[in-house]
């Protein structure tokens, strides 16, 4: 198992530790996860999958809780939705 893998966040490749969550990948990429209804940038709050602040679009599926998903090579993540 490689130590690091690469996923794509907002069209840019990001190297993350193997086993890291997508939330971590988004943080390493320096992005916020989502945009709130009044336009604020938001990132993970609870870290355990219940606050829904870490939602991103993964492989075109919206509303994925990034803290609950392992990063996998080839994943395409879009933030800010």
């Amino acid at each position, binding site marked *: 198992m490689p130590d690091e893998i690469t996923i794509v966040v907002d069209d840019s490749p990001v190297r993350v530790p193997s086993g890291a*969550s997508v939330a971590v990948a988004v943080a390493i990429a320096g992005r916020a996860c989502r945009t709130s209804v009044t336009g604020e940038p938001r990132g993970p709050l*609870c870290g355990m*999958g219940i606050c829904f602040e870490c*939602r991103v679009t993964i492989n075109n599926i919206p509303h994925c809780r990034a803290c609950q998903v392992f990063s996998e090579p080839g994943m395409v993540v879009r933030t800010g939705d």
Partner: protein
Amino acid sequence: MQQRFDILVVGGGPAGIAAAVRAAECGAKVGIVDDNPNLGGQIWRGASESIGEAASWRGKLQATNVTILCGTRVFHQPRAGVLFAEHEDGLQVLGYENLILATGARERFLPFPGWTLPNVMGAGGLQAMVKSGLPIDGKRVIIAGTGPLLLAVAAYLRQKDAEIAVICEQASIRNLARFSIALLRHPQKIRQALRLRKDIRGVPFATSSWPISADGRNALESVTISRNGKHETIACEYLACGFHLVPNIELPQLLGCQIHGGYVQVDELQETSVKGIYCAGEPTGIGGVESSLVQGEIAGFSAASRPEEARKLFGARERGRDMCSLLDRTFRLRGELRNVLSSETLVCRCEDVSYSRLQKHSSWRAAKLQTRCGMGPCQGRICGPATEFLFDWSPDSTRPPIFPARVDNLAAMTEPELQQTTISGGS
């Protein structure tokens, strides 16, 4: 996918694992289900496998034939004896004879100006992110809020080479001193406490202290805290802030279990007011790991019809009960925490509802209908405890789905199919 168990355990933290182990050792067919990708719940999240209590229990679990269902969220009980749960592969239909609810607790979040900035997280929240691979070495962190979790998080982050600027505990030094003395009754806790003290030696620790605001343009840049009646602004990259824990009682409520004072009522065998449904751990009272483990064991034995084994653990459980009320008293929230909000401070983060908009209403229901507070995907898990503290509102009744679920999973069966789902006999 349909599966049937003699005993289904909901929640894969310490209480759930202990319950599953004991029930399986008694010969029952046991399943354990948890939302997170791995077992361990919050406190044993990513626990190192080789040593310690977590590893020991994990080992016991591996030695049984308990069916482990991770990444699986219970969202509905369509009929007695059946739970619907959602997995990325689709709907899981879980039939059971007896149910053990070990749904744990979550952090309580209280709003303050700037709390919605990226990199402001819960205390357990930041810890979970670091366990998930977030680099924290060399990063400046402020830990704030209340409760023993703050110290545990501080110790962990320290190990990971974070620079902890200060720990701000809102409880008074007097309450904490009393807590320390009371811990003398709990030898395990003393050992933990001493270890923690060593781990965080040198980290500034402030009592009667809390965050006034978090500031930054697109992410956190500094935090202003109240300490000794004065405000101090400290530059930092992360704020790990949580105000103790609230029990996850949504599933017990959905199932009709009696709730008292916000906790699930159980008898001495950990059975709830609903026959065949047991509850163990934090939902019965926030008491920590030891309490969760022993309650889990008792529930496991009870559900497996071995009450005599359960009784042997009653003494151990008694000591845990003390801990719950001790924690409650020590870390009671002070009134000043209501005064830090400005009128624009958001209270509901899903729907961006500000404090001033909520102040117009006299009940949770009216506020919900008029502002949508609590109507977002968190289903009030974040804003509910906050509005309870700010306005003394009680949440309203629990309805399915108790967790957001795909429409096709919510609609997965016809009524006749549901009636036919076997709850006893073969699977």
